[in-house]
Protein backbone atom coordinates (compact mmCIF):
# COMPACT_ATOMS: atom_id res chain seq x y z
CA UNK A 1 0.00 0.00 0.00
CA UNK A 2 1.33 3.41 -0.95
CA UNK A 3 0.80 6.42 1.27
CA UNK A 4 -0.01 9.79 -0.18
CA UNK A 5 2.45 12.66 0.26
CA UNK A 6 0.48 14.41 3.04
CA UNK A 7 0.22 11.31 5.20
CA UNK A 8 3.85 10.53 4.59
CA UNK A 9 4.78 14.08 5.72
CA UNK A 10 2.70 13.74 8.89
CA UNK A 11 4.33 10.44 9.73
CA UNK A 12 7.74 11.98 9.17
CA UNK A 13 6.83 14.85 11.52
CA UNK A 14 5.67 12.41 14.20
CA UNK A 15 8.84 10.38 13.75
CA UNK A 16 11.01 13.46 14.06
CA UNK A 17 9.08 14.67 17.11
CA UNK A 18 9.39 11.24 18.75
CA UNK A 19 13.10 11.25 17.99
CA UNK A 20 13.54 14.70 19.61
CA UNK A 21 11.49 13.66 22.65
CA UNK A 22 13.59 10.49 22.96
CA UNK A 23 16.82 12.49 22.76
CA UNK A 24 15.51 14.90 25.41
CA UNK A 25 14.45 12.03 27.66
CA UNK A 26 17.85 10.34 27.32
CA UNK A 27 19.62 13.64 28.12
CA UNK A 28 17.38 14.12 31.17
CA UNK A 29 17.95 10.57 32.41
CA UNK A 30 21.71 10.93 31.99
CA UNK A 31 21.63 14.23 33.92
CA UNK A 32 19.58 12.64 36.71
CA UNK A 33 21.92 9.64 36.84
CA UNK A 34 24.94 11.97 36.96
CA UNK A 35 23.40 14.04 39.81
CA UNK A 36 22.63 10.86 41.76
CA UNK A 37 26.10 9.47 41.10
CA UNK A 38 27.97 12.49 42.45
CA UNK A 39 25.26 13.04 45.08
CA UNK A 40 24.65 16.64 44.04
CA UNK A 41 22.39 17.49 46.97
CA UNK A 42 21.60 20.48 49.15
CA UNK A 43 19.87 19.85 52.50
CA UNK A 44 18.99 16.32 51.38
CA UNK A 45 17.49 17.52 48.08
CA UNK A 46 19.13 16.08 45.00
CA UNK A 47 19.42 18.86 42.44
CA UNK A 48 18.77 16.29 39.73
CA UNK A 49 15.08 16.78 40.53
CA UNK A 50 15.33 20.26 39.02
CA UNK A 51 18.21 19.87 36.55
CA UNK A 52 17.09 16.71 34.73
CA UNK A 53 13.69 18.03 33.49
CA UNK A 54 15.46 21.26 32.51
CA UNK A 55 18.16 19.37 30.57
CA UNK A 56 15.54 17.14 28.93
CA UNK A 57 13.42 20.11 27.86
CA UNK A 58 16.45 22.03 26.60
CA UNK A 59 17.86 19.17 24.50
CA UNK A 60 14.44 18.27 23.09
CA UNK A 61 13.70 21.89 22.12
CA UNK A 62 17.18 22.36 20.63
CA UNK A 63 16.88 19.37 18.29
CA UNK A 64 13.22 20.09 17.50
CA UNK A 65 14.13 23.61 16.42
CA UNK A 66 17.07 22.33 14.40
CA UNK A 67 15.28 19.54 12.48
CA UNK A 68 11.63 20.61 12.50
CA UNK A 69 11.86 24.36 12.86
CA UNK A 70 9.37 24.34 15.77
CA UNK A 71 9.17 23.14 19.38
CA UNK A 72 7.54 19.90 20.51
CA UNK A 73 6.22 21.17 23.85
CA UNK A 74 9.01 19.89 26.08
CA UNK A 75 7.24 16.55 26.56
CA UNK A 76 10.46 14.94 27.80
CA UNK A 77 10.53 17.46 30.69
CA UNK A 78 7.20 16.07 31.91
CA UNK A 79 8.45 12.52 31.45
CA UNK A 80 11.48 13.40 33.57
CA UNK A 81 9.17 15.04 36.13
CA UNK A 82 7.30 11.74 36.45
CA UNK A 83 10.50 9.68 36.55
CA UNK A 84 12.21 11.84 39.20
CA UNK A 85 9.08 12.06 41.39
CA UNK A 86 8.42 8.31 41.22
CA UNK A 87 12.07 7.36 41.71
CA UNK A 88 13.20 10.12 44.10
CA UNK A 89 10.20 10.28 46.38
CA UNK A 90 8.60 6.87 46.21
CA UNK A 91 11.20 4.22 45.26
CA UNK A 92 14.49 5.64 46.61
CA UNK A 93 13.02 7.36 49.65
CA UNK A 94 9.61 5.91 50.53
CA UNK A 95 9.37 8.03 53.71
CA UNK A 96 8.84 11.06 51.45
CA UNK A 97 6.26 9.24 49.35
CA UNK A 98 3.29 11.47 50.00
CA UNK A 99 4.00 15.13 50.44
CA UNK A 100 3.06 18.49 48.95
CA UNK A 101 5.86 18.44 46.37
CA UNK A 102 5.07 14.94 45.16
CA UNK A 103 1.36 15.69 44.93
CA UNK A 104 2.08 19.06 43.30
CA UNK A 105 4.41 17.51 40.70
CA UNK A 106 1.94 14.73 39.91
CA UNK A 107 -0.81 17.32 39.65
CA UNK A 108 1.22 19.36 37.13
CA UNK A 109 1.87 16.24 35.06
CA UNK A 110 -1.80 15.27 35.07
CA UNK A 111 -2.84 18.84 34.33
CA UNK A 112 -0.60 18.85 31.26
CA UNK A 113 -1.92 15.49 30.11
CA UNK A 114 -5.66 15.96 30.71
CA UNK A 115 -6.26 19.68 31.37
CA UNK A 116 -10.06 19.77 30.99
CA UNK A 117 -10.72 16.90 33.38
CA UNK A 118 -8.27 18.25 35.96
CA UNK A 119 -9.76 21.75 35.75
CA UNK A 120 -13.25 20.37 36.38
CA UNK A 121 -11.82 18.42 39.30
CA UNK A 122 -10.23 21.59 40.75
CA UNK A 123 -13.55 23.46 40.43
CA UNK A 124 -15.36 20.66 42.30
CA UNK A 125 -12.70 20.59 45.05
CA UNK A 126 -12.83 24.40 45.48
CA UNK A 127 -16.64 24.37 45.65
CA UNK A 128 -16.56 21.50 48.14
CA UNK A 129 -14.06 23.32 50.38
CA UNK A 130 -16.15 26.54 50.31
CA UNK A 131 -19.37 24.69 51.10
CA UNK A 132 -17.68 22.77 53.91
CA UNK A 133 -16.11 25.91 55.45
CA UNK A 134 -19.32 27.95 55.23
CA UNK A 135 -21.42 25.15 56.74
CA UNK A 136 -23.64 24.74 53.66
CA UNK A 137 -22.49 21.14 53.29
CA UNK A 138 -23.47 20.39 56.89
CA UNK A 139 -26.90 21.98 56.35
CA UNK A 140 -27.49 19.97 53.17
CA UNK A 141 -26.43 16.74 54.87
CA UNK A 142 -28.64 17.57 57.88
CA UNK A 143 -31.60 18.15 55.58
CA UNK A 144 -30.97 14.87 53.73
CA UNK A 145 -30.62 13.04 57.07
CA UNK A 146 -33.99 14.42 58.22
CA UNK A 147 -35.70 13.48 54.96
CA UNK A 148 -34.24 9.98 55.11
CA UNK A 149 -35.29 9.50 58.76
CA UNK A 150 -38.84 10.71 58.01
CA UNK A 151 -39.09 8.30 55.09
CA UNK A 152 -37.65 5.47 57.18
CA UNK A 153 -40.15 6.19 59.99
CA UNK A 154 -43.02 6.16 57.47
CA UNK A 155 -41.98 2.85 55.94
CA UNK A 156 -41.12 0.96 59.13
CA UNK A 157 -43.63 2.68 61.45
CA UNK A 158 -40.86 3.24 64.01
CA UNK A 159 -40.09 6.79 65.18
CA UNK A 160 -36.43 7.62 64.57
CA UNK A 161 -34.78 10.74 66.04
CA UNK A 162 -34.57 13.59 63.53
CA UNK A 163 -31.45 15.07 65.15
CA UNK A 164 -28.15 13.27 65.07
CA UNK A 165 -26.84 12.24 68.49
CA UNK A 166 -24.13 14.64 69.67
CA UNK A 167 -20.70 13.07 69.70
CA UNK A 168 -18.05 13.89 72.27
CA UNK A 169 -16.64 17.28 71.38
CA UNK A 170 -12.93 17.80 71.92
CA UNK A 171 -12.89 21.20 70.25
CA UNK A 172 -12.96 24.41 72.23
CA UNK A 173 -16.46 25.87 72.58
CA UNK A 174 -16.29 29.57 73.47
CA UNK A 175 -19.93 29.71 74.57
CA UNK A 176 -19.53 27.17 77.40
CA UNK A 177 -19.45 28.67 80.91
CA UNK A 178 -18.56 25.91 83.32
CA UNK A 179 -18.26 25.87 87.10
CA UNK A 180 -15.83 23.01 87.67
CA UNK A 181 -17.02 22.40 91.22
CA UNK A 182 -20.64 22.09 90.17
CA UNK A 183 -20.30 19.01 87.99
CA UNK A 184 -21.39 16.43 90.57
CA UNK A 185 -17.85 15.11 91.03
CA UNK A 186 -15.48 16.03 93.87
CA UNK A 187 -12.25 17.18 92.26
CA UNK A 188 -9.05 16.70 94.23
CA UNK A 189 -5.44 17.36 93.31
CA UNK A 190 -4.40 15.08 96.21
CA UNK A 191 -3.83 11.32 95.91
CA UNK A 192 -6.10 10.40 98.82
CA UNK A 193 -8.65 11.87 101.19
CA UNK A 194 -8.08 12.39 104.85
CA UNK A 195 -10.27 10.15 107.02
CA UNK A 196 -12.56 9.26 104.09
CA UNK A 197 -13.61 5.92 102.72
CA UNK A 198 -12.99 5.10 99.08
CA UNK A 199 -15.41 2.37 98.04
CA UNK A 200 -13.96 1.69 94.61
CA UNK A 201 -11.16 2.80 92.29
CA UNK A 202 -12.49 2.93 88.73
CA UNK A 203 -9.25 3.72 86.92
CA UNK A 204 -7.72 6.66 85.12
CA UNK A 205 -9.95 9.10 83.25
CA UNK A 206 -9.04 11.85 80.85
CA UNK A 207 -10.69 14.93 79.41
CA UNK A 208 -9.13 16.90 76.59
CA UNK A 209 -9.79 19.98 74.52
CA UNK A 210 -8.10 21.22 71.36
CA UNK A 211 -7.73 25.01 71.27
CA UNK A 212 -6.70 27.10 68.28
CA UNK A 213 -5.71 30.67 69.11
CA UNK A 214 -7.53 33.42 67.23
CA UNK A 215 -5.75 36.32 68.91
CA UNK A 216 -2.50 37.57 67.39
CA UNK A 217 -0.10 38.33 70.20
CA UNK A 218 1.89 41.44 71.00
CA UNK A 219 -1.11 43.47 72.15
CA UNK A 220 -2.05 43.63 75.80
CA UNK A 221 -5.74 43.30 75.02
CA UNK A 222 -5.19 40.08 73.07
CA UNK A 223 -3.11 38.61 75.89
CA UNK A 224 -6.06 39.16 78.23
CA UNK A 225 -8.37 37.44 75.73
CA UNK A 226 -5.95 34.52 75.43
CA UNK A 227 -5.82 34.14 79.21
CA UNK A 228 -9.63 34.14 79.40
CA UNK A 229 -9.74 31.52 76.63
CA UNK A 230 -7.20 29.34 78.42
CA UNK A 231 -9.30 29.43 81.61
CA UNK A 232 -12.37 28.31 79.68
CA UNK A 233 -10.41 25.63 77.81
CA UNK A 234 -9.16 24.22 81.12
CA UNK A 235 -12.71 24.18 82.54
CA UNK A 236 -13.98 22.42 79.44
CA UNK A 237 -11.23 19.77 79.71
CA UNK A 238 -12.15 19.17 83.38
CA UNK A 239 -15.83 19.00 82.43
CA UNK A 240 -15.04 16.35 79.76
CA UNK A 241 -13.07 14.42 82.39
CA UNK A 242 -16.00 14.59 84.85
CA UNK A 243 -18.50 13.51 82.22
CA UNK A 244 -16.58 10.35 81.39
CA UNK A 245 -15.96 9.55 85.08
CA UNK A 246 -19.59 10.21 86.05
CA UNK A 247 -20.80 7.87 83.28
CA UNK A 248 -19.04 5.06 85.19
CA UNK A 249 -20.61 6.05 88.50
CA UNK A 250 -17.62 7.95 89.91
CA UNK A 251 -18.28 10.77 92.33
CA UNK A 252 -14.66 11.78 92.89
CA UNK A 253 -11.44 12.36 90.96
CA UNK A 254 -8.12 11.94 92.77
CA UNK A 255 -4.72 13.28 91.73
CA UNK A 256 -6.21 15.57 89.11
CA UNK A 257 -3.45 16.86 86.83
CA UNK A 258 -3.60 19.49 84.10
CA UNK A 259 -1.31 19.51 81.07
CA UNK A 260 -0.86 22.05 78.31
CA UNK A 261 0.89 20.93 75.11
CA UNK A 262 1.54 22.74 71.88
CA UNK A 263 0.69 20.37 69.05
CA UNK A 264 1.96 21.98 65.87
CA UNK A 265 5.31 23.55 65.05
CA UNK A 266 3.89 27.02 64.53
CA UNK A 267 2.37 26.98 68.02
CA UNK A 268 -1.20 27.87 67.18
CA UNK A 269 -2.88 24.72 68.46
CA UNK A 270 -2.87 23.94 72.17
CA UNK A 271 -3.95 20.62 73.62
CA UNK A 272 -5.22 20.85 77.19
CA UNK A 273 -5.61 17.61 79.10
CA UNK A 274 -7.08 16.93 82.53
CA UNK A 275 -6.56 13.46 83.91
CA UNK A 276 -7.02 11.77 87.25
CA UNK A 277 -8.18 8.63 89.03
CA UNK A 278 -11.93 8.13 89.14
CA UNK A 279 -13.22 6.84 92.48
CA UNK A 280 -16.49 6.09 94.20
CA UNK A 281 -16.47 7.79 97.60
CA UNK A 282 -18.71 7.04 100.53
CA UNK A 283 -21.07 10.00 101.01
CA UNK A 284 -19.89 12.23 103.80
CA UNK A 285 -20.47 15.62 105.38
CA UNK A 286 -16.85 16.49 104.63
CA UNK A 287 -17.78 17.00 101.00
CA UNK A 288 -20.99 17.25 98.99
Amino acid at each position, binding site marked *: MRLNAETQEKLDDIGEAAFCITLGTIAGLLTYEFCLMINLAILGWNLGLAFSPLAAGYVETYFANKYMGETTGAVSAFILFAVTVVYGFIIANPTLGFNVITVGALFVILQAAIPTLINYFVIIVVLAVISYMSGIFKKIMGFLYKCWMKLKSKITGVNYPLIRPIEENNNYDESLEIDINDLGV*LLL*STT*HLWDQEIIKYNGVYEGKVIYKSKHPMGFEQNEKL*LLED*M*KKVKNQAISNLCNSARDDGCNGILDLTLE*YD*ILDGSGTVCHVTAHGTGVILKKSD*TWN
Partner: protein
Amino acid sequence: MLLSSTNTLENKDIVKYHGLVTGESLIGANVYKDLFSGVRDVVGGRTSKYEEEVQKARELALNSMKEKATEKGANGIIGLKISYNNLGGTMGNTILVTAYGTAISYK
Protein backbone atom coordinates in the same frame (compact mmCIF):
# COMPACT_ATOMS: atom_id res chain seq x y z
CA MET B 1 -4.52 30.82 103.79
CA LEU B 2 -2.30 27.79 104.27
CA LEU B 3 -0.71 26.45 101.10
CA SER B 4 0.72 22.94 100.94
CA SER B 5 1.76 20.58 98.18
CA THR B 6 1.17 17.57 100.45
CA ASN B 7 -1.92 15.36 100.44
CA THR B 8 -2.82 15.91 104.08
CA LEU B 9 -1.80 18.15 106.96
CA GLU B 10 0.00 16.64 109.93
CA ASN B 11 -1.75 17.20 113.29
CA LYS B 12 -4.63 18.97 111.56
CA ASP B 13 -8.17 17.76 110.96
CA ILE B 14 -9.62 18.37 107.51
CA VAL B 15 -13.25 19.19 108.13
CA LYS B 16 -14.37 19.95 104.60
CA TYR B 17 -13.21 19.48 101.00
CA HIS B 18 -14.37 22.35 98.77
CA GLY B 19 -13.07 20.97 95.49
CA LEU B 20 -10.52 22.21 92.99
CA VAL B 21 -9.38 25.83 92.84
CA THR B 22 -7.24 27.21 90.04
CA GLY B 23 -5.43 30.43 89.20
CA GLU B 24 -3.84 31.46 85.92
CA SER B 25 -1.68 34.28 84.66
CA LEU B 26 0.16 35.02 81.46
CA ILE B 27 3.60 36.40 80.76
CA GLY B 28 3.12 38.27 77.51
CA ALA B 29 5.41 38.77 74.51
CA ASN B 30 6.26 42.30 75.70
CA VAL B 31 8.49 40.79 78.36
CA TYR B 32 10.90 39.65 75.65
CA LYS B 33 11.09 43.17 74.25
CA ASP B 34 11.81 44.46 77.75
CA LEU B 35 14.48 41.82 78.12
CA PHE B 36 16.29 42.88 74.98
CA SER B 37 16.11 46.53 75.98
CA GLY B 38 17.69 45.73 79.35
CA VAL B 39 20.74 43.78 78.23
CA ARG B 40 22.74 45.06 81.18
CA ASP B 41 20.49 42.92 83.38
CA VAL B 42 22.09 39.79 81.97
CA VAL B 43 24.59 38.49 84.48
CA GLY B 44 25.96 34.95 84.13
CA GLY B 45 23.07 33.87 81.88
CA ARG B 46 20.41 35.05 84.28
CA THR B 47 18.24 38.06 83.81
CA SER B 48 16.81 39.75 86.85
CA LYS B 49 14.01 41.23 84.74
CA TYR B 50 12.94 37.79 83.56
CA GLU B 51 12.96 36.41 87.10
CA GLU B 52 10.91 39.38 88.23
CA GLU B 53 8.27 38.77 85.57
CA VAL B 54 8.05 35.04 86.32
CA GLN B 55 7.78 35.77 90.03
CA LYS B 56 5.06 38.33 89.36
CA ALA B 57 3.10 35.90 87.18
CA ARG B 58 3.40 33.17 89.81
CA GLU B 59 2.13 35.52 92.52
CA LEU B 60 -0.80 36.55 90.32
CA ALA B 61 -1.77 32.93 89.68
CA LEU B 62 -1.47 32.01 93.37
CA ASN B 63 -3.47 35.07 94.47
CA SER B 64 -6.21 34.32 91.96
CA MET B 65 -6.38 30.74 93.28
CA LYS B 66 -6.41 31.89 96.93
CA GLU B 67 -9.24 34.33 96.20
CA LYS B 68 -11.35 31.51 94.80
CA ALA B 69 -10.61 29.36 97.84
CA THR B 70 -11.55 32.20 100.20
CA GLU B 71 -14.85 32.68 98.34
CA LYS B 72 -15.64 29.03 99.07
CA GLY B 73 -14.93 29.51 102.76
CA ALA B 74 -11.71 27.49 102.71
CA ASN B 75 -8.72 28.26 104.92
CA GLY B 76 -6.19 26.00 103.21
CA ILE B 77 -5.10 24.60 99.85
CA ILE B 78 -3.43 21.20 99.71
CA GLY B 79 -2.00 19.16 96.84
CA LEU B 80 -0.81 22.43 95.32
CA LYS B 81 0.72 22.25 91.84
CA ILE B 82 2.27 25.05 89.81
CA SER B 83 3.10 24.66 86.14
CA TYR B 84 4.76 26.91 83.56
CA ASN B 85 3.83 26.31 79.94
CA ASN B 86 5.28 28.09 76.95
CA LEU B 87 2.42 28.56 74.53
CA GLY B 88 4.94 29.62 71.86
CA GLY B 89 4.54 30.28 68.16
CA THR B 90 1.92 32.68 66.92
CA MET B 91 0.59 32.95 70.44
CA GLY B 92 3.63 35.16 70.88
CA ASN B 93 5.94 33.06 73.04
CA THR B 94 3.61 33.65 75.94
CA ILE B 95 4.11 31.69 79.15
CA LEU B 96 1.04 30.47 80.94
CA VAL B 97 1.44 30.04 84.69
CA THR B 98 -1.14 27.75 86.27
CA ALA B 99 -1.59 27.09 89.97
CA TYR B 100 -4.17 24.62 91.24
CA GLY B 101 -4.93 22.67 94.34
CA THR B 102 -7.66 21.30 96.58
CA ALA B 103 -9.44 23.85 98.74
CA ILE B 104 -10.09 22.63 102.28
CA SER B 105 -11.27 23.79 105.66
CA TYR B 106 -9.12 22.51 108.50
CA LYS B 107 -8.87 23.02 112.22
